[in-house]
């Protein structure tokens, strides 16, 4: 009988021996638990640029919202239908999850890295913070109140929404600190890690100043002193030449081509055409950018379609070769917008160098040059009375607003924000518009369920979760 008993010994032995190293088998060896922090920064910036550049009808449809492009076949997005394709979700998720989470994680890792020299660490953290401010500003200026102080924390599954105005002020405060921290004498990210400025810290300072200038001006109608302070602090340090432009350059080779190239050239999408609104402005003033912004229709002519209407693709102009090029860059910040900001600051009576007219002329000239026109073409364009600052139609808001709308082409989110802010040009509602002009995006519908209490509070705080609610700075 004892012999039988022996049988159980190996049984127990086998069972216990095999459970000892169970924990080691639960370690994923092909995915890192620790990584070099800059790789998160590079990826976050690329994600951000991709979201801002794409023309995907699932993500970024502001080209239609601002009547720069029209659609040939599907009209949903052109008619202000943001719900069908859950555009607010993609925009929100894209910013929080794909950009901010990685920037924050990168900063956490850099902060914890004892091997970094203090100045290099400070530069890296400042650059990360500038990009975080850049991204949060997009969220706050798209949605209004958003999770901010409790965001990006897995321990806070139900983050509260912070007041948009408070967030905006906080972003400016952070920018002040981060710009001050940047020290061009020390290293930042390396040339390959820094996908915008290839490691040039002084250019990041210019980028930061232009961003502060821009975010300050957003507040101009609601908090003039904050706008003035931001503009005056930034003027001298902001981007002052096209070579300072902050570009994210896509590559000519797959898989890192510009998403518009992927969609239109590789995907063969025959749906996007020039909008009549923009095309008529370009043609009316013999804009040298006409053939750079758009191609001709099948008949060799320039023509824009009506937004919201089914348009026959072959009859209209489409995005130009420079827009759909595989390696077309996305402009994160540039000289053109900075000069327009300076012109506007001047008109608002802020203390910045130069004259409104000179900045206006610089901005338009820089835009034409950027797109491939010549200085002579720019001069001829500006000489026209409809364009010339002194004689162009309307007040400064209309003059700057109209030209900025043209010049911000292919920066759809920025175009939308400036149209909302300057209220120029007046956008004609598309045919069968689902709503009035959208002055914000609704919160993603997932927020209603996943963060319901805070969502409800935020929706009522901003005056209702609809696209026509005006953000706090949108006074007109």
């Amino acid at each position, binding site marked *: *009988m004892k*012999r*039988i*008993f022996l*049988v*159980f010994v190996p*049984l127990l032995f*086998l*069972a216990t021996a*095999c*459970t000892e190293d*169970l*924990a080691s*088998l*639960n370690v*994923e060896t*092909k*995915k*890192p638990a620790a*990584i*070099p922090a800059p*790789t*998160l920064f*590079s*990826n976050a910036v*690329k*994600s951000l640029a*991709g*979201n801002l*550049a794409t023309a*995907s009808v*699932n993500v970024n449809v502001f080209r239609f919202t601002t009547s720069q492009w029209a659609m040939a076949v599907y009209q*949903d997005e052109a008619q202000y239908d943001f719900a069908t394709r859950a555009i607010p979700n993609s925009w929100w*998720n894209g910013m*929080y*999850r794909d950009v*901010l*989470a990685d920037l*924050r994680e990168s900063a956490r890792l850099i902060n914890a890295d004892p091997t970094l020299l203090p100045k290099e660490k400070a530069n890296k953290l400042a650059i990360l913070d500038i990009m975080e401010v850049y991204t949060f500003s997009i969220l706050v200026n798209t949605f209004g109140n958003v*999770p901010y102080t409790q965001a990006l*924390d*897995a321990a*806070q*599954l139900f*983050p509260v929404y912070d007041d948009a105005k408070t967030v905006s002020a906080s972003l400016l405060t952070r920018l002040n600190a981060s710009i001050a921290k940047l020290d061009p004498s020390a290293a930042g990210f390396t040339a*390959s*890690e820094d*996908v915008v400025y290839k490691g040039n810290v002084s250019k990041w300072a210019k980028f930061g100043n232009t961003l502060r200038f821009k975010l300050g001006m957003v507040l101009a109608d609601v908090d003039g002193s904050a706008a003035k302070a931001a503009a005056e602090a930034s003027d001298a340090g902001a981007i002052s030449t096209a070579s300072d432009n902050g570009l994210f350059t896509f590559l000519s*080779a*797959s898989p890192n081509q510009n998403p518009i190239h*992927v969609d239109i050239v*590789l995907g*063969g999408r*025959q749906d996007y055409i020039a909008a009549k609104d923009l095309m008529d402005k370009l043609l009316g003033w013999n804009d040298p950018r006409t053939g750079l912004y758009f191609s001709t229709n099948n008949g060799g002519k320039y023509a824009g379609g009506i937004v919201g209407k089914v348009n026959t693709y072959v009859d209209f102009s489409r995005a130009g070769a420079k827009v759909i090029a595989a390696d077309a860059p996305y402009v994160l910040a540039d000289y053109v917008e900075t000069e327009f900001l300076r012109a506007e600051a001047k008109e608002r009576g802020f203390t910045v160098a130069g004259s409104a007219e000179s900045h206006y002329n610089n901005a338009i000239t820089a835009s034409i040059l950027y797109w491939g026109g010549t200085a002579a073409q720019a001069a001829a364009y500006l000489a026209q009375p409809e364009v010339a600052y002194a004689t162009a139609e309307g007040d400064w808001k209309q003059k700057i607003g109209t030209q900025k709308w043209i010049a911000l082409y292919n920066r759809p989110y920025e175009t939308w924000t400036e149209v909302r802010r300057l209220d120029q040009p007046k956008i004609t509602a598309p045919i069968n518009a689902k709503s009035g002009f959208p002055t914000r995006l609704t919160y993603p519908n*997932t*927020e209603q*369920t*996943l*963060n*319901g209490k805070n969502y409800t509070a935020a929706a009522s705080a901003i005056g209702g979760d609809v696209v026509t609610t005006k953000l706090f700075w949108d006074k007109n």
Partner: protein
Amino acid sequence: MKKLVLSWVLMMAVVSTLFAQTRQVTGKVTSSEDGSTIPGVSVSIKGTTTGTTTSADGTYKITVGNGASLVFSSVGFLNKTIPAGNATSLNVILEVDSKLLNEVVVTAGGVLRDKKSLGYATSTITNEQLTVGRTTNPVNALAAKVAGVRIASSNGMVGSSTAIFIRGFTTFTGSNQPLFVVDGVPIDNGGGSNALQNGVSNSNRAIDINQEDIENMSILKGPAAAALYGSRAANGAILITTKKGKTGQKNSVVFNSSYNIVEVNRLPDYQNEYAQGTVGGRYNPISNLSWGPKIAGQAVTNAFGKQENLTAYPNNVSDIFQKGINMQNNLSFQGGTDKSAFRFSYGNLQETGILSSNSLNRNNFTLNANSQVSEKLSASVSAQYITSVSERSQIGNQLSNPFFRSWFMPRNYDLTGIPFEDPATGNQVFFDNTDNPYWTLKNNTFTDELDRVIGNIALKYYLKPWLAVNYRLGVDASAYGTVGYDQIGARGGANTSAGGTGGIANSSLTSRDMNSYFQIIGNKNITDDLKLDFNIGNEIVESRSTYMSTTGRNLAIRDLKNISNASVVTAFNQTANRRLVGVFGEFNFSYKGYANLSFTGRNDYSSTFGAGQNSYFYPSIAGSFIATEAFPALKSNVLSFLKLSGNYAKVGKEAGTYATNTLFLLAGASDGFGPVINFPYNNLGGRTLSNTQADPNLGPEFTTSREIGLEAKFFKNRLGIEMNYFNTLSTDLIFAVPVGPSTGFTSQNRNAGSLKQKGFELLITATPLQTSNGSWDISANFTTLDPIVESLAKGVEFIQLGGFTTPGTRLYAGQPYGLLFGSVFNRASDGKKLIGANGLTSLSPLQGAIGNTNPDWTAGITNNIRYKNFNFNFLIDIRKGGDVYSRNIGDLYRSGTAKETAEFDRFTANGDIAKPYIIEGTLANGQPNTTPVSAQDYWSNIYNFGTGESYVFDGSWLRLREASISYTVPSKVLAKTPIGKMELGVNGRNLWLYAPNFPHFDPETNATGVTNSQGFEANGLPQTRNYGFFLRATF
């Protein structure tokens, strides 16, 4: 458990001292069927409680008194009583009990048990039943044959996967597929899911099994049946017993051959009157819609600028298909000596598909051998080598799927006649911006190659005649490689999403599953009436897999399928290792054979959980009571058998690998929306924090089931009824719980949510006719199942199972599992469609439930009619309900190509657009709609692209699933040939289909293959039927 064993051992010691007899009798028990020895035969002295059982080699030894008679009994054989006289040696041949033969079932752990003693439901399918249809995938061969089992084939492409759900679902986003076990050792049935928007139709790995090697399949249906296989059998288990040689059997050779034609079983009905065009009945050669002018031979300029006369090409779609061939040949050698036996078989399967560039060639080499090494030790080895090569083509919602838009090919487009490529450049020629179907079939290729070894060794040692130690070690190792090639100029995602630059995708998956079982198996009469069987042991499962892929894009040279041809290469590497250790025990008490009570308990240790959570225990209890044996008075000419059974069981389920750590990922994949983020970018590898936050405190899921059953036989077993009612409750389900993205994550791996089901299964068997010349047997099964999502995590409105965001399949608390969700029409207050002033419907901004993918009930009816040497078998497969979202049907309507869209003339006599339709609905003012609209307005409004609601069709069907007629050549005829037995016949599968509410296509389709998302079709490929003949000869 140790205590239990100890006390039991002590008890046995007491019992054994009671023996005190005078003479020893020895002998061997063999089977009348093939002379093989029978282990485990109960040998008892008549009229006493004394007895023994035969050992592994069928021998016994018993001490008897003078004049005693010995009673030999064994499951599956008729009892035999023999007076021992004064013999000291007594060899016995037991007659096979044909009535009871099919009642022996393989249960968990490979233990054979008498079906009538079981307290839970099982079903057994024999080789003959399995192979009627000669289908390639053995999972398909189970369709409609077993109550409680739902078989869902994804499409009719060669090698396509088929999902199997035994008693529905136990989890949300993890696998609901059962465990496949071959000869007591689990094997891998992974794979078989398809991407929605790129790639080919994949196989589930059970497809590697040669059906001719299968002796039978035993289907264990619930946690009770499968408790001993632990976690992996939470969704039931399919126990495959392979054919083996038998000791004492004379050597024989069996040759099996079948040849079947494979063809599309249902093609759409087209209108062939109207040409391409989008607006106003005008011809438009680049439109993919057929709302153009009437086709009347008029001269037009086609898409390539050439003049042609408008002509209808009614077969421009059906011509894309070809007749495929499925050819299966098997040769086996088997035999045995008195101590050992073997079987060797070679099987070859060759199938060419219904589309060119689709084929599968599989070779199976199988060797089974067993030997009685000594009186107490037996050993067996089973080894199988499988090599399989296939070619596949693209499927899904992508421009490279040859049927992305081809189902609604403009009726006037001469697809067959117009060349599909430019002979000089190889560039494709097509009017549309999708890939030309012929071009993509030729140019976007995919091949795979599998080498797989499945083997096990088993040793059994009898410590005592009633106590054996069993050790089994199994391995399932495979290397699977794929090569995808996307031609330069391809327009769709295909294999590499190269965006027209050409791409090559190489991947290799090597995996190895090791399963080790150590078991102590015993049976003993505790008293004369009370018998105990037990089975205690452990299981160690270790799975390791490594996946490597390299994807190259931007090809320099056409058709050079070498990764070095690509200028941009990205690589990916993944491993998944896991181990599960289980300790289990099963104790079956049987009182006089008619009252049975069974207890199981199991403790698992899983590497998929953190240290504190990785050990968990779960029990089961099952009982059965055979009333007709307990109270023989109940038996009558009407009632022959009555059994009641019931069980309660719980099973724990482990998590997916690496669900407890939050990690960084190489930035590469986007979430399907927005720009594709790819690295390396300028030689820089980008990283991103995982979007899923892991929970280190993750614990197991549990499924609890309760079942009651009734089995009755009437009229001397001519009519039988089996009923089972069960419910299951699955709790602590592990899934990626959505969280607000402002946390930086979009989900968190957590235990949350619960799922409950109740179901009813009925099996009726009948023999309406039985004469000496033949018989007619009917077996009908019926299943109804009601899976309801009880709860999700707090704040989580739904979980996406599959499909698109909208439409898609989702889980909502309180709703059936796998709800179809999508856009719905605006409705008036009377519930009818709200019709606008233009006479058309509009979509509601709010989406809603648009269908329930679960069938109301399913049934299968097998008829087997034998007359003299002829046998006629056919299987009717019925499904009631089960909604299917069909992109294809909607496309046919929307595009104006379906026959129905031309039921009325589209033009009036004077050439104006006719307006023959009035959409039934209500205007805003409450009045019924009276505004007539044109055919184009009608069909493209109701079946507008985003209109989820109208794309949902009831998937009910009635089909002749399988049929065969066979003839057994009389032995007289074969007397002068070397052939011992010969059977030949004709067979077919999917021969006839009636789907009253599902026009144009077969409703048996699923875009994503083996996934929990069922009932969703997006540009799917058709199902097939096959028919042919077969031959089986024994030499």
